[in-house]
């Protein structure tokens, strides 16, 4: 009950914010609720809105989505990004000087060493990054992310809201064809939305809170290229419901839309995207080829939105779960691009002139308590552990070298305006081992069993788990070290009977402002796998206040207060921030860099011809 209240409040904040963004997109309807204040606040509110869109991503599978999660590069990242940006800029500069005509960009094939494995190509069934890697190129959204993570047009041509704000009319581009030749009409769009209506988090939220309850009333076909969304209460959130999110409505063929969302669709994925699915060898590789009849958007390219061009003839993803092997394959020239790997390995690539390195936005490393079971249903035990922690050791081991991590006690991303050290003194990186050990003994918990899950195939979490094993043992717990792979851990953490502590890491999308904060599952009452109980109830109060507050200074104050409370109630272990990299052949062009939504997508990339 309480949880849904805070969701509702969050939603209200989002509603206000969304108006700002839609206005900013320039394509918004004649201002539905024309409050100048909202427009004024565009800059600040714009990003948080996106955060809530991505929030579900974090809640479900934080790690797998990292690639997509990266957000607008903020100040602190610049330092790390710089070298890369420079490389890319010179590259682009040369390209501009040479004035490469479009025709000369075309051709070649791209091999990508992929980090995630693929179990299904149905993006509406799974949120696995491996699947999304490829389906973003094959299937398209009505609205996609721009470079700044705002909403931009992809299959949608325009949208307009009625005077009372209750009817939103969307028009899709004409002449778009599926890979099998079927023309795109509202038929496939509606079928996809229908399939996703209970899974796509934002779509579901908007309908539940503001929309008409029956799907066929909520989404109505007008003609082949036009449909409306009908509300009972006005909101600016409607476009976000059609945009990127978990289980996002990537428009697919009718054959796939007919499959229930809980089942994975079989057969080749068909879409309207720049690339056409070619073949899949499970456990090994999957590939796609340029779609000759692709109809690109007439809009300017901006992130994943606007004009997308497939220059490469063929793209092949090779599944290489081991990060060092991915890098080795890139060095050996067996692949042209290697997905996420730790900075440790990047050092080796820095000297290699044949390879360009690209940074990803900072990730936050964290550790979660099981708030339902002893010993960590006891705040004293949680605090004792946090105060004994050696954050730097865990970060260094996770990141690999000194330049690739930073100690950061702040719940919001360090280096942003929202950074705070409230409540950190004596709690964050305090290394009070002896004191904590005495505390645990006094609590009568010495020798109590703590089951610590260690996902050995995910380096950052694996590294932190090794440090946690030592800290837990040092303060007197009897650690049962459960070695498993990431997939198993994700399954096990859903059952609070099976564990006491585990590590994970998350991208920065929930960490750049108040709305992200509101949507941040791990700190919500009973909201995430950690089942945070918020016994004093202060957390809920503070989040409710934040949802209502519109003044920036006051928001900051509320968030600082919350952070102090976060340390007092030891909600989870904040370890710090680290930076991962990805890399590509030096002659690859078209990389924007800086952690944008399309950074690693094959569209718009091409190889410099010799």
């Amino acid at each position, binding site marked *: 009950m309480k949880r849904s209240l805070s969701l509702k409040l969050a939603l209200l904040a989002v509603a206000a914010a969304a108006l700002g963004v839609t206005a900013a997109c320039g394509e918004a309807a004649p201002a539905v609720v024309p409050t100048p204040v909202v427009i004024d606040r565009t800059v600040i509110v714009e990003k948080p809105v996106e955060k809530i869109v991505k929030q579900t991503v974090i809640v479900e599978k934080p790690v797998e989505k990292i690639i997509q999660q990266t957000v607008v590069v903020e100040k602190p990242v610049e330092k790390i990004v710089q070298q890369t940006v420079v490389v890319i800029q010179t590259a682009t500069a040369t390209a501009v000087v040479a004035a490469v005509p479009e025709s000369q960009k075309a051709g070649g094939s791209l091999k990508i060493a992929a980090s995630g494995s693929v179990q299904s190509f149905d993006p509406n069934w799974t949120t696995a990054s491996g699947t999304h890697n490829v389906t973003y190129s094959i299937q398209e959204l009505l609205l996609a992310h721009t470079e700044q993570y705002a909403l931009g047009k992809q299959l949608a041509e325009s949208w307009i809201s009625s005077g009372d704000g209750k009817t939103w009319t969307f028009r899709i581009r004409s002449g778009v064809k599926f890979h099998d030749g079927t023309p795109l009409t509202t038929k496939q769009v509606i079928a996809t939305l229908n399939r996703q209506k209970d899974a796509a988090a934002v779509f579901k939220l908007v309908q539940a809170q503001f929309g008409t309850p029956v799907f066929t009333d909520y989404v109505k076909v007008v003609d082949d290229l036009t449909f409306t969304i009908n509300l009972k209460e006005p909101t600016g959130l409607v476009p976000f419901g059609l945009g990127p999110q978990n289980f996002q409505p990537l428009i697919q063929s009718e054959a796939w839309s007919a499959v229930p969302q809980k089942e994975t669709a079989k057969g080749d994925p068909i879409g309207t995207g720049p690339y056409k699915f070619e073949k899949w060898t499970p456990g090994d590789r999957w590939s796609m080829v340029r779609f000759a009849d692709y109809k690109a958007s007439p809009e300017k390219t901006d992130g994943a939105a606007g004009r997308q061009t497939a220059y490469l003839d063929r793209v092949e993803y090779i599944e290489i779960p*081991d*990060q*060092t*092997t991915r890098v*080795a394959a890139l060095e050996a020239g067996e692949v042209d691009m290697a997905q996420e790997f730790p900075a440790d390995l990047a050092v*080796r690539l820095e000297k290699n002139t044949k390879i360009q390195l690209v940074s990803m936005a900072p990730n936050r490393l964290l550790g979660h308590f099981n708030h339902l079971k002893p010993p960590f249903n006891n705040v004293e035990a949680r605090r004792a552990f946090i105060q004994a922690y050696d954050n730097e*050791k865990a970060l*260094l*081991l996770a990141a*690999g070298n000194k330049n690739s991590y930073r100690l950061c006690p702040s719940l919001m991303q360090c280096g942003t305006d929202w950074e705070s050290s409230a409540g950190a003194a004596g709690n964050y990186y305090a290394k009070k081992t002896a004191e904590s050990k005495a505390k645990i003994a006094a609590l009568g918990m010495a020798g109590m069993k703590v089951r610590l899950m*260690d996902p*050995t195939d995910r380096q950052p979490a694996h*590294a932190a788990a*090794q*440090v946690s*094993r*030592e800290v837990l043992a040092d303060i007197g717990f009897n650690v*049962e*070290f*459960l*070695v498993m792979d990431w997939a198993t851990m994700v399954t096990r953490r859903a059952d609070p009977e099976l564990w006491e502590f585990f590590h994970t890491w998350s991208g920065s999308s929930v960490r750049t402002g108040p709305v992200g904060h509101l949507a941040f599952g791990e700190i919500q009452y009973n909201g995430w796998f950690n089942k945070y109980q918020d016994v004093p109830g202060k957390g809920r109060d503070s989040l409710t206040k934040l949802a209502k507050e519109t003044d920036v200074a006051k928001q900051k104050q509320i968030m600082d207060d919350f952070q102090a409370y976060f340390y007092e109630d030891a909600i989870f272990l904040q370890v710090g921030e680290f930076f991962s990299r990805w890399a590509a052949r030096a002659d690859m062009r078209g990389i924007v860099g800086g952690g944008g939504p399309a950074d690693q997508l094959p569209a718009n990339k091409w190889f410099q011809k010799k």
Partner: protein
Amino acid sequence: MSTTTRNAPLYMAPTFQERVQRAYRGTVHVLRREPTVLIGAVILLIMASMAIFGTFITRTDYTRVDPINRLIGPGVQHWFGTDTAGRDVFDRTIAGARLSLMIGFAVTLITTMIGTVVALIVGYSRLLDNVVMRFVDGLLAFPSILLALALIALMPNSGIRNVIIALSVTGTAGKIRLVRGAVLTLRETAYVDAARGMGARVPRILMVHIAPNTLNLIIVQATFTLASTILAEASLSFLGAGTPEYIPSWGNIVATGQGYVQVAFWISFFPGLFLTATVLAVVLIGDALRDYLDPKLRGRLERSTQ
């Protein structure tokens, strides 16, 4: 068993003293003729003392990560360098010797004891033989590493105990088949017939006339079991099915260094070298033992899975 003269069988197994004397003379003889055995014995002795006195040799807490000192090359401070988590590879290799030899000897002991007892019993009972041997055939039909991996997957957590159980289950079947074969042959020999004719009962025949005569075979086979167990444990650990990373095993140390071939060859190189040397030592000793104790065994011993 040594002093009974009443009801003395026509053939009598050598006494314990005789056995020791024979073993001593044999050892001297073998060492003189086959210098390779000396090499094997020396290596094994070094490894065993490392395993036993390891705690006096190691200078760091090799179970704890120390990322500030990661990937340091071999030198005065760290003889074999440090690994990806900054742990001393020399210390971990020493500690790995203990784990390898402990698991090796434990599994060899368990499989040999259970295998011999079961083989003696089934070798003398046709009914049991049919039942047990079908089951043994079934177990032997699995490639043993796969069965060991599957058994480990069944057990919660991870640790030394699981590895010992899995390798014992897969190793016992082969033992039973081998010793049973010898029992069946011995059962038909003249002196067993004679003992039977003189009214000796089955347990006595088994204990006095058959068991001692399978000893040579068992000893020789035990050395090969030891060698292949050490290899199997290393393979399991390498595949991530052995002990967790903080408990060093030669297999898992090599696994941590696998991805760092280009930057830190020492992580995988040294523990692998120690592992190979140990197995080599055991095999050399086993070969010599076989040649000395029972030349006829040549070729009959099948290579157990690695």
